[in-house]
């Protein structure tokens, strides 16, 4: 397909985010290894768009025989923050819940900026840095590029990209993703399949489940390739844990995006159910693939399934339980009537321009300059926040 045409389509979607490029497929990187492998399996060319910074989102453009995943480094940064909040041995539960709450506000704020909801953005971004005691560095994406190149690294960087490429895989109404199975999954979740939100209708669910299953398969194969090249020992149990953790992160990011787009409880609930159903298909795919790839003569399906359930029960479920109070509180604050956003910004100004402003706060305020500059959204509240971001010391830029 004509590259100029693709550029027009990409630019129309990215708006002011001018710092993007088609990823150089000649570079000897692990990302290219993953893309080439996925391309072969999907039997379709992939042109990855790499957005430097931007907003924490990932999407695919598909048409004219090509698949164009659009990948922002900001997605890696924010999903990295959430991965930390979900890592049980990182901090105690209260601290992780608190950090997840700040990350939720930041994600909602940046997505609101992206989607043109200026006042919601100003409120959430201000709350994400207001009266904060502990500052766990929100690392730049480069910090996530360092070794070890292991199961966690691969899941963090590649699962979402592989999911997007998976949209190029045909998804016929057959087998375990047939309409009947999709409807059954919705029923098991306690909903009437005839009266559900669009995201829970069979065709929609199937498309996503097929992309997830493709991503899980490709992730397993490419993680093993990368670890063999790098010299690590692949551990199937660690891989399972990282896949489940990644699915949880995707769910959290999407929950924030849905919160901005449609805060109606039924839409939010439908999205959460859809992601939980999708996770079941991911688990099924991991079980099949591990049996086939790691040990064809090895443990039976039941044993692998048992290990997956145990990993979820012991690590992922408690981690999600731990952070839920922080996430829920952040969402309540985001749309609460009181205090007003004007009052929140006044408190932030007093704090940020007071005698002893926190360096962590100044750093995060400074980092807001880019998304504020990129956003088409404007409002007096956002202008006030932009003014505070501009007044944070410029020397902090070099800290990144």
């Amino acid at each position: 397909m004509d590259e100029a045409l693709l550029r027009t389509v990409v630019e129309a979607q990215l708006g002011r985010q001018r710092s993007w490029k088609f990823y150089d497929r000649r570079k000897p990187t692990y990302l290219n290894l993953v893309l080439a492998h996925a391309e072969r399996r999907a039997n379709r060319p992939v042109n990855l768009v790499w957005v430097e910074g931007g907003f924490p989102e990932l999407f695919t453009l598909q048409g004219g025989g090509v698949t164009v995943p659009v990948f922002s480094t900001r997605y890696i940064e924010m999903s990295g923050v959430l991965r930390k909040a979900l890592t049980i041995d990182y901090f105690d539960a209260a601290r992780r819940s608190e950090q997840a709450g700040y990350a939720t506000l930041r994600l909602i704020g940046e997505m609101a900026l992206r989607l043109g909801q200026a006042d919601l953005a100003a409120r959430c971004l201000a709350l994400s840095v207001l009266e904060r005691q502990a500052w766990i560095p929100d690392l730049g994406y480069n910090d996530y590029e360092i070794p070890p190149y292991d199961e966690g690294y691969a899941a963090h960087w590649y699962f979402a990209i592989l999911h997007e490429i998976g949209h190029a895989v045909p998804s016929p109404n057959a087998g375990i993703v047939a309409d009947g199975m999709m409807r059954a999954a919705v029923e098991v979740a306690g909903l009437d399949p005839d009266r559900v939100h669009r995201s829970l209708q069979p065709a929609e669910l199937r498309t996503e489940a097929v992309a997830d299953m493709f991503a899980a398969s490709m992730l397993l194969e490419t993680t093993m390739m990368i670890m063999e090249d790098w010299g690590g020992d692949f551990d199937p149990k660690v891989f399972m844990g990282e896949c489940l953790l990644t699915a949880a992160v995707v769910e959290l990011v999407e929950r924030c995006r849905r919160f901005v787009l449609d805060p109606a409880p039924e839409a939010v609930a439908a999205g959460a159910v859809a992601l939980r159903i999708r996770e079941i298909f991911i688990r099924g795919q991991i079980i099949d693939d591990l049996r086939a790839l790691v040990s064809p003569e090895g443990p039976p399906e039941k044993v692998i399934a048992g290990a997956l359930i145990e990993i979820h029960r012991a690590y992922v479920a408690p981690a999600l339980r731990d952070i839920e109070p922080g996430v829920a509180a952040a969402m309540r604050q985001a749309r609460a009537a009181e205090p007003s956003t004007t009052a929140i910004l006044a408190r932030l100004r007093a704090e940020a321009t007071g005698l002893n402003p926190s360096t962590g706060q100044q750093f995060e305020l400074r980092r807001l300059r880019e998304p504020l500059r990129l956003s088409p959204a404007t409002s007096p509240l956002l202008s006030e926040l932009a003014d505070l971001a501009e007044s944070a010391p410029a020397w902090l830029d070099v800290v990144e």
Partner: protein
Amino acid sequence: MTDERVEVLIATADEDDASALRAALGPAAPEGVHVFERKNLGGDAATWLVLASVLAPQIPAVLTFVLALVNRNRVGVLKVGDVEITNPTPEQVERLLAERAPQAPGG
């Protein structure tokens, strides 16, 4: 008759609208109409992007068709040449239409 082409891009959230646009733009776009689907990671918010290089004299006809969709609040982005409008209103499309309307001879 001029051969000048103008790039037109329309984003809509509805697949049927995208199909209708493809059909409407087809006769005015000698190089064809390209339709892209955009899907987010959560899979719940597809957008269709319809892109074509349209013969300049055909732009008013195309805009008239687009106006019908805009009247029903079905267009997220409209780009005609260098002009790009997010969430276009009927008034904005009518203004574009007036700018592109054929001039009377000598007018």
